[in-house]
């Protein structure tokens, strides 16, 4: 073999089998975006459970020639494509996460004060305003619905709806949802202060009543019956959520409940994060739409917070025992961050005002509300 042949061989290897000659500016930009999310997850601890795998997924998938998100010559899906296909495309993972969330949730504060369900509904205002706003920017109805649900502040719901209606927006929507959920303590307080007076923030709410284990046990059954009769399309999400909760409250399947809350949920979170991150290839993601999605996602959160607080103000006009309007902002789901924000704002106004458990009611109502909104959107396209 002559030197020229050796050089030619090296050249061929470099060109066809290494990534260097194939890397594009777009891929470098995407890697930087991936690193930004990794920084946010690791250094700032913003939603690390999701942003870390998502960030690394973005970083990983944007290396050229990597066999991760494509198909082989024989049509076999590559590694992360397998996670995506069977987990996200088949809409399995969001529902499994909802199972775990149900098993983790104590509906006591909501059952003790069912009025807070209305706040959960009011806090969906942003979802519908955003839906309308996005339509004006040329998005299709399905795309608009999937972007609008970001304001519901519920990751699995956002992923479930987006995978169903506009899978090409999955990466941007999931990132916007989780990023803004992490930013709830920054986004909500200024709006809360703007919409309430100091006196309103000082309103003390009565201690929640005791909820018996039997009542908690019967809740998933009643909720399934009433919600699924009205919105059958939300059955995969809410059905799993309430099943998880039934396992928890029954107390007889502790092992299953523990698995759903911990091992199962953690496993699917890994696959979900990587899959979602891996959808963000430069050639797909670098477009004007993600920019708009991030802008509208922020608007969505703001209007949802506004809607929740406004709903409490309206309810207070009719209620004998006034509610503290600060708990309205917890109507966006983001459990338990939004409730914590309501609580801390209440403490700032009055160090003896303990709103946490009162805010958990609308917070949990927000989970049901955002799932209901997703169900409404799904039904709309049937």
């Amino acid at each position, binding site marked *: 073999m002559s030197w020229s042949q050796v050089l030619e061989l090296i050249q061929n290897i470099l060109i066809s089998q290494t990534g260097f000659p194939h890397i594009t500016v777009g891929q470098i930009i995407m890697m930087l975006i991936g690193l930004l999310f990794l920084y946010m997850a690791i250094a700032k601890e913003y939603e690390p459970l999701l942003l870390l795998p998502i960030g690394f997924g973005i970083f990983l998938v944007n290396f050229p020639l990597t066999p991760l998100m494509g198909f082989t010559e024989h049509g076999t899906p590559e590694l992360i494509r397998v996670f995506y296909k069977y987990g996200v495309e088949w809409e399995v993972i969001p529902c499994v996460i909802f199972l775990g*969330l149900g098993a983790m949730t*104590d509906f006591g504060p909501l059952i003790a004060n069912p009025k807070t369900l209305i706040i959960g509904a009011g806090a969906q205002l942003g979802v519908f305003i955003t839906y309308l706003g996005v339509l004006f920017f040329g998005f299709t109805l399905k795309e608009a619905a999937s972007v609008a649900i970001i304001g519901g502040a519920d990751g699995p719901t956002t992923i479930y709806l987006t995978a169903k209606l506009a899978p090409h927006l999955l990466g941007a929507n999931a990132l916007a949802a989780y990023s803004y959920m992490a930013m709830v303590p920054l986004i909500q*307080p200024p709006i809360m202060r703007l919409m309430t007076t100091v006196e309103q923030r000082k309103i003390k709410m009565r201690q929640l009543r005791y909820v018996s284990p039997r009542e908690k046990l019967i809740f998933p059954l009643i909720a399934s019956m009433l919600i699924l009769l009205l919105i059958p399309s939300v059955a995969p999400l809410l059905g799993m959520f309430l099943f998880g909760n039934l396992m928890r409250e029954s107390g007889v399947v502790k092992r299953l409940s523990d698995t759903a809350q911990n091992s199962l949920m953690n496993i699917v979170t890994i696959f979900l994060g990587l899959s979602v991150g891996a959808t963000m290839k430069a050639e797909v993601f670098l477009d004007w739409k993600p920019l708009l999605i*991030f802008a509208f996602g922020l608007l969505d959160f703001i209007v949802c917070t506004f809607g929740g607080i406004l709903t409490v103000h309206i309810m207070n006009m009719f209620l004998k025992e006034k509610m503290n309007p600060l708990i309205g902002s917890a109507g966006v789901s983001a459990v338990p961050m939004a409730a914590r924000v309501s609580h801390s704002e209440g*403490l*700032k106004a009055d160090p003896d005002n303990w709103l946490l458990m009162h805010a958990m009611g609308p917070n949990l109502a927000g989970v049901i509300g955002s799932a209901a909104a997703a169900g409404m959107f799904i039904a709309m396209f049937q």
Partner: protein
Amino acid sequence: MTKTYNYLNNKIWKSNNRTIWNSSIASGLIICLYAILFLFPMALSTAYASSNDKQNKNAMVSGQELEKPKPVFTRNGGEISAKFIPRAKSTSVILNFKVTKGGKLLDVKGMDFEKAARPEVDIKNYKSALFVVEIGDVSPAGSDATVNISSDFFASGTEYRVFNEKLPQPWFNSECHNVASKGRVRELMITVKDGGPFDSDGQANGSITFVGGPRDSFWGYALGTLFIRFFGIFLVLSVLMIGMMLSGMFFSRIEAKKAEKKSDDDLKSTSSDVVDSIFSDPETIAEENGVETQHHSEEIAPNAETEAKFFDEAVDDYEIAAAIATALHLHFQTSAPTPIVIEKTESTATLQRVVCPVAQAQTNTWSNDGRSQIMRERQQTYNRGNR
């Protein structure tokens, strides 16, 4: 206890000392920073994408493109059915084409909207594909044929628009008759003249090529459904609220009845125990309830090493217990501006309310941190990592 007090004191939320103004500015700045962090690379990438032809070719897949209807046609005698998933739908619909008068239906084909796109026509109004309907055997040539298109996808406001590129204004309304048929099916009946404006071949030659598609107002639908669905959520959650209120009442009664079934003597003794306990010495209560006080622990752990070990193991329990005890104590104080009241209904013999005869306590870091501790403990139940 001093150790516990210091621990709790150090844990007091710093945020209480921050002014609203400062935190607002901080929030604003962080959001701006966040926006810059995101928007800058994205703006760069957008600029890059638009300046690069290669990137443009691969740019994010358009939703319109993905939602393009792809009809599949089947013939059943004189009727041709088109099955497809329309834009803004996830389930398929069927449109049935037939010629009821004046000719014979030869074929129906789908047509890309792009071929008929004009600036004045919004693709969003056309959820279905455009269709090319070919009619033959129109006799005599130049006479009318009636096309009937039926589907349960049509609404009362559905129009059928015709496209004829040979005309100066290619798009116009067919003025079809939209009538209700069986069930939810509606029929659009359109009269087409051989060689007339609806006939794309423009000749009265016994065959008609009729291009068009059903049109529904996009914005009308979008706004209408927006309104209905938003209030739909209120409806759903209101129904759930009513259901929960009813079940709450039901369970409260069951609990009350259960309590009633328990012996009156037990309840009476319980109430007197509670009253006694309020006025008793805390150490006596602890002893009665089997809780070990520090005094006891000293007896159990006579040497320093054992004592240290005991404290190491029990420090968490002590802190939590101290926090809970303090918080409960102050909670009773703060909620009790009135003298002691013991209400007991004859029917249930249940102790309704017990309050302390002390004046309202001033809130202090002890009570605040005790409550914070309790809240933090309770919040663990909800800690789902925002997943």
